[in-house]
């Protein structure tokens, strides 16, 4: 009966809005783009990337028909919007997926105003073009000329291939970015010990972002022009970060930037020199066109500083903004070393970090802490062509503590419940979790309407994460008391602890809370908030099956292989792994009877939260006829010449990234083996070595030619010296 009443009410509300109904038709099509001279598959909406900007006025009813003209399914999520759960657009969780060659109609009242956006919530479609701006105007808005600046990142690589490479920790992207942070470079910069300590603490080279992008875009272009603005005019720029995994620094060549809103909600104006826009965040800013006959550059620089995209405001000579210099990776590494325990935990040294106030990455910013002192700059200074550029410590950078709502934002009275989320992850295997559990490994978080949910978020991972809550705004408790700002994305830096709170104001449904870095979300970094006693969702006819579909995203297995073809035989390994499990097959095939063959296969599982420890079971077949060792290190008779055993074992990653592998076979024979892979000697040279208690050993090196191919040479105690090529997939 109660539901009936609610329905009636809903109808009444809807019909009340009906006269302001605003309709859009979105046609989603497969397309081919060419940004870099290479044709690549992408997805366009109404023929464009980004998707068209949708404009509404508060009080409208949005009617949006999405026509899926592709042969595979899609979805659209309205980012930051307050709407009934079934309109939220998360396929299988809140809304029916839009099947190929079908149309889905969204209809919801617009109850808010500000800068928002929309994007696909299906797999990795957001990376290849499915994002657009969603602008809601206030009923009475102060007249200010405005412009929308939608930022995005572009790569020619297939996003599924990117995802696979990330899970394999392939460092090809680091090579492309010049960010391998290898030993030769470390020595050149006097940072050998820094690098060694870093690896000792079991860390691979870290970067501020994971993926190499060919281009960064403003509204789909590397440079966008808005010449219509007059000198002296104040312009509202609505900045939306619609990228898949890139944070952007914003700088303006015309002086200060006044921030007036974030994530759609107004804040008291605050003037800054620059600010960072997290993935999926939006900021409204006001900038002034200060001079005549000049266009001023509003420039968005990728956080890893591999590229930028510009918006020119005004008309005339283009006033450039000084580009941000390259990051000082080894300073960052040194800082990480200090913060990381050997046990793999982050410690903040009692600094109580929060709200982006202490950006530890500042040690890497040459514009603030001065240029890196390496041989190159030293020689440049000697030539006398450049003054020694020193850092500028007067740059005002926005942080969350500076955001203040213009109105009180206190939550309505209600019972308060506090949840603790620790952001956790394993960079080496690209596992991203909350409290060490992925979405599929954890239960839904049940909430009740009217409750106030307070979430204490601690980032114990090595990367920053933009945590996004669907369908609700939360307050960031940032010391502004009653005037805490409202947002729907919280960027949280490593080692920070932030507290947010929201009122459970919806009636029903499942609401996602997840990291908005696309590849982190797909790895399972999130939770689902579910209202207790939600009615069945007509769009999800089979909830159990649907939930399985949601969970499947982070249960997927990734395949990788390394196949060597060398003059002394073929070595190789193939792996299939997901968050916790792995299957692998290794082989060594000689070209003649003497060198024989060996093959081992394992099924294993990672046990601890840092994934240093795993157990496995498997078998080992081998045949040689030339080896003459009689005993292993433990005094057991050697079976190296002929072996067909089942075994169980345990692998533990030691400091300096050495894997210790101890196993026992069904004949009672024990073996302990140490392996270190991929020591980054120079940008493209990797060394590796292994030794075991059967007195087998091998050392080798690899020169990386392309993402997939390397030249290799190695010496193996059984097979001797060899050289050839290696395929790394």
């Amino acid at each position, binding site marked *: 009966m109660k539901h009936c009443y609610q329905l009636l009410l809903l109808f009444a509300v809807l019909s009340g809005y009906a006269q302001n109904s605003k309709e859009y038709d979105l046609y989603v099509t497969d397309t081919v783009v060419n940004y870099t001279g290479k044709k690549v598959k992408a997805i366009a909406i109404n023929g464009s990337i980004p998707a068209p900007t949708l404009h509404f006025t508060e009080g409208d009813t949005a009617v949006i028909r999405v026509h899926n003209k592709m042969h595979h399914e899609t979805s659209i999520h309205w980012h930051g919007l307050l709407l009934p759960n079934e309109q939220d657009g998360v396929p299988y969780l809140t809304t029916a997926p839009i099947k190929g060659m079908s149309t889905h109609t969204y209809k919801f009242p617009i109850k808010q105003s500000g800068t928002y956006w929309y994007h696909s919530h299906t797999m990795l479609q957001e990376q290849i073009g499915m994002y657009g701006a969603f602008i809601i105007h206030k009923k009475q808005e102060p007249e200010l000329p405005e412009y929308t600046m939608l930022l995005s990142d572009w790569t020619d690589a297939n996003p599924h291939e990117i995802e696979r490479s990330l899970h394999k920790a392939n460092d090809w992207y680091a090579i492309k970015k010049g960010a391998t942070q290898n030993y030769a470079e470390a020595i050149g910069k006097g940072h050998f010990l820094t690098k060694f300590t870093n690896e000792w603490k079991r860390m691979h080279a870290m970067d501020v972002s994971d993926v190499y992008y060919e281009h960064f875009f403003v509204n789909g272009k590397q440079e966008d022009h808005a010449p219509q603005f007059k000198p002296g005019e104040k312009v509202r720029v609505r900045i939306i970060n619609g990228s898949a995994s890139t944070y952007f620094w914003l700088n303006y060549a015309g002086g200060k930037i006044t921030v007036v809103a974030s994530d759609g909600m107004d804040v008291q104006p605050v003037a800054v020199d620059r600010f960072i826009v997290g993935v999926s965040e939006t900021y409204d800013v006001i900038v002034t066109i200060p001079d005549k006959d000049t266009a001023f550059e509003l420039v968005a620089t990728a956080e890893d500083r591999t590229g930028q995209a510009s918006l020119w405001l005004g008309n005339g*000579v283009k*006033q450039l903004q000084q580009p941000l210099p390259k990051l000082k990776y080894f300073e960052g590494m040194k800082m990480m070393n200090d913060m990381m325990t050997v046990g793999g935990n982050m410690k903040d*040294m009692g600094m109580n970090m929060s709200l982006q106030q*202490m950006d530890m990455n500042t040690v890497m910013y040459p514009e603030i802490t001065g240029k890196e002192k390496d041989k190159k700059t030293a020689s440049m200074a000697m030539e006398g062509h450049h003054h020694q550029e020193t850092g500028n410590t007067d740059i*005002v950078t926005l942080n969350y503590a500076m955001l203040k709502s213009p109105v009180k934002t206190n939550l309505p009275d209600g019972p308060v419940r506090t949840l603790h989320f620790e952001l956790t992850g394993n960079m080496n295997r690209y596992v991203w979790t909350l409290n060490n559990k992925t979405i599929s490994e954890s239960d839904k978080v049940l909430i009740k309407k009217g409750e106030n949910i307070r979430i204490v978020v601690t980032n114990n991972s090595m990367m920053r994460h933009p945590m996004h809550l669907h369908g609700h705004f939360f307050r960031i408790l940032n010391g502004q008391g009653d005037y805490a700002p409202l947002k729907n994305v919280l960027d949280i830096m490593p080692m920070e602890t932030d507290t947010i709170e929201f009122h459970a104001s919806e009636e029903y449904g499942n609401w996602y809370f997840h990291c908005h870095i696309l590849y982190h979300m797909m790895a399972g970094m999130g939770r689902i908030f579910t209202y207790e006693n939600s009615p069945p969702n007509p769009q999800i006819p089979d909830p159990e099956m649907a939930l399985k579909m949601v969970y499947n995203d982070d249960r997927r297995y990734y395949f990788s292989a390394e196949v060597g073809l060398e003059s002394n035989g073929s070595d190789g390994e193939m792996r299939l792994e997901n968050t916790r499990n792995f299957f692998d097959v290794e082989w060594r095939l000689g070209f003649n009877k003497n060198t024989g063959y060996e093959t081992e296969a394992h099924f294993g599982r990672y046990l601890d939260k840092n994934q240093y420890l795993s157990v496995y079971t498997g078998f080992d077949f081998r045949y040689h006829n030339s080896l003459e060792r009689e005993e292993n290190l433990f005094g057991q008779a050697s079976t190296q010449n002929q072996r067909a055993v089942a075994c169980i074992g345990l692998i533990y990653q030691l400091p300096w990234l050495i894997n210790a592998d101890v196993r026992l076979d069904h004949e009672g024979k024990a073996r302990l083996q140490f392996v270190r892979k991929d020591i980054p000697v120079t940008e493209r040279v990797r060394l590796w070595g292994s030794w075991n208690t059967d007195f087998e050993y091998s050392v080798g090196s690899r020169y990386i030619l392309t993402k997939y191919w390397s030249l290799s040479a190695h010496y193996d105690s059984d097979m001797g010296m060899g050289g050839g090529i290696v395929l790394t997939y």
Partner: protein
Amino acid sequence: MKTLRNIAMAVAMAFVFTSCEAQIKNPKTETVKVYGNCEMCKKTIEKAANEKGIVKADWNVDTDMLTLTYDQTKTNTDAILKKVAYAGYDSETFRAPDDAYKNLPECCQYDRPAKVSAIAENHDSHKGHDMPAAETNQNSPLFNPVYTAYFSIKDALIKSDGKTASAKASELLKVIATAPMDKMKTEQHTLWMKIQNSLKTDAGHIAETTDVKHQRDHFASLSENLYALAKTTTNDAPYYYQKCPMYDNGKGAHWLSKENTIKNPYYGSAMLSCGSTVETLK
């Protein structure tokens, strides 16, 4: 057979390409104005524009004209002029970032084409955008020179630059001596008389050494006194009173800053962002 011919073609082509490597293909030549002064400018401009096999640039010192020959399938005039602007040189298309211009050697600091400020027409008090709007309403102008010098010392200490800290401390000594006591309010005057000597002592110590450790000890007490002084003034742009909890074996030390972001002057870049704002002075 066809493949063979293709291979032969490819080899022949490769030959042709390598033999004329120095030449620019699909050439287009354009002459554009680039502002500059001297021979040294010429070197910098051409270095910024040149790209092997793609761009050949020649800048004329007398006419300020840059002649570009480039491969039009690979680049364009705008892209080249952008690089020149990043090196510090204005053209008709791009105006160099102010920082890049300032970093040019003195002899190269050519007269820039003037900008016409749009704001100056509306507000007479502003002259161009080079002056940040915030600066005009700064902290009580009376003590401006003192705080300007103080912030310079702080910035030098952030970079562990003892030499600059020492030089800036000498400046601070000078402005302390010439502080206009007649314009101070009563309470400011009383306070000034109280702290004047210790200000001088601390500034003097910082000035007479380049040992950053010693300078930081005095900077700690200098900061305490200037904090007390800052409390007696009102300002539109806030000063932030910030604390490093670790300094002096955990006793802690404070400093003043114009921004809320922490840049710790007590440990240099190692602990740059360690600390917190304890008070905002407005």
